[in-house]
């Protein structure tokens, strides 16, 4: 099963590192309750995927992977701006709110 592990540095090492960062970010998103920290964990997952894209761009010699990373960064910036504005609007209504307090749409 582990036959692909070699002692020379190839793209598998980068992919394994990206998988680890993604798993840590996903776990943090599920565990933490502070909305700001949850956003940071989303950023971790996005960066892991960016690392995967750049690795494949180098492995397959294709610039398309780097273009996708460019667009992911733009969308991540927009997402953070809107998300932090939402957090500010919610925190202004209720000091110290965490993800469990934001239950108005619970139904």
């Amino acid at each position: 099963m582990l036959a692909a592990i070699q002692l020379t540095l190839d793209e598998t090492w980068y992919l394994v590192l990206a998988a680890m960062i993604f798993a840590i970010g996903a776990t943090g998103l599920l565990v933490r309750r502070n909305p700001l920290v949850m956003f940071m964990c989303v950023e971790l997952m996005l960066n892991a995927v960016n690392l995967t894209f750049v690795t494949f761009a180098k492995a397959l010699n294709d610039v398309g992977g780097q273009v996708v990373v460019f667009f992911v960064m733009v969308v991540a910036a927009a997402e953070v701006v809107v998300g932090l504005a939402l957090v500010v609007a919610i925190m202004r209504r209720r000091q110290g709110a965490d993800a469990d307090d934001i239950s108005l749409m619970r139904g």
Partner: protein
Amino acid sequence: MRVEMFVFLVSACVCLGGALGVVLLRNPVHNALSLVATLFGVAVLFVAQGAYFLAAIQVIVYAGAIVVLFLFVIMLLGVDRAERLGMEPIAGQRVAAVIAGVAILGLSLTALLAGAQRVTGAESSLAPLDPGVPDINRLGQVLFTDYVWAFEITAVLLTVAVVGAVVLARRSPGPPIDTDEFPDGTVPDHWEAEYDAAIAGDGTGGGSAVDAPAIDAPEAVATADTEEVAG
């Protein structure tokens, strides 16, 4: 190859340490600073793989703009204190979350390491990375020819995001939207409406009388919140 391996190992340690810091540290400011470590490590790995332009963008946009925005919001809201860990809304939720994270890691590692072929897919034939041309030139050519429609849509997206952030961050008039969650009158967060009423009723009267409820109210909110949790 030895230098590349050394660079990879060092930046991988920085990345993983920063990622663990984001998840495990209690203080949001420390989380943001750990995120900077991870972003910088990823930027180093971009350089090691020849994506120089993306590494620069990573440092400028992520570490320079996004994390600073995070820190700005943390300082603005004053949430730089430890998270309450006593209450767990769903029983066993943290254990389930850790199990889910380990499952995600195991799934991706199995997909990566079990296959005989390391990287599937064909070599590029339409947009190759030419080693003679800098990657920023190559990226610009592709971005303004093949992906020009997506690029224009990106401009619209950024405009909408800026407008949305401004609209969301405005203080809207009227009572708080979550009044119906506390029908028995124990609303801890009406200090803003009271502040507006004080301004409207008082007119240009004494400024200190107007300021007093706005300054006292957040502390009262905090104590009410902790009492609610304790009780």
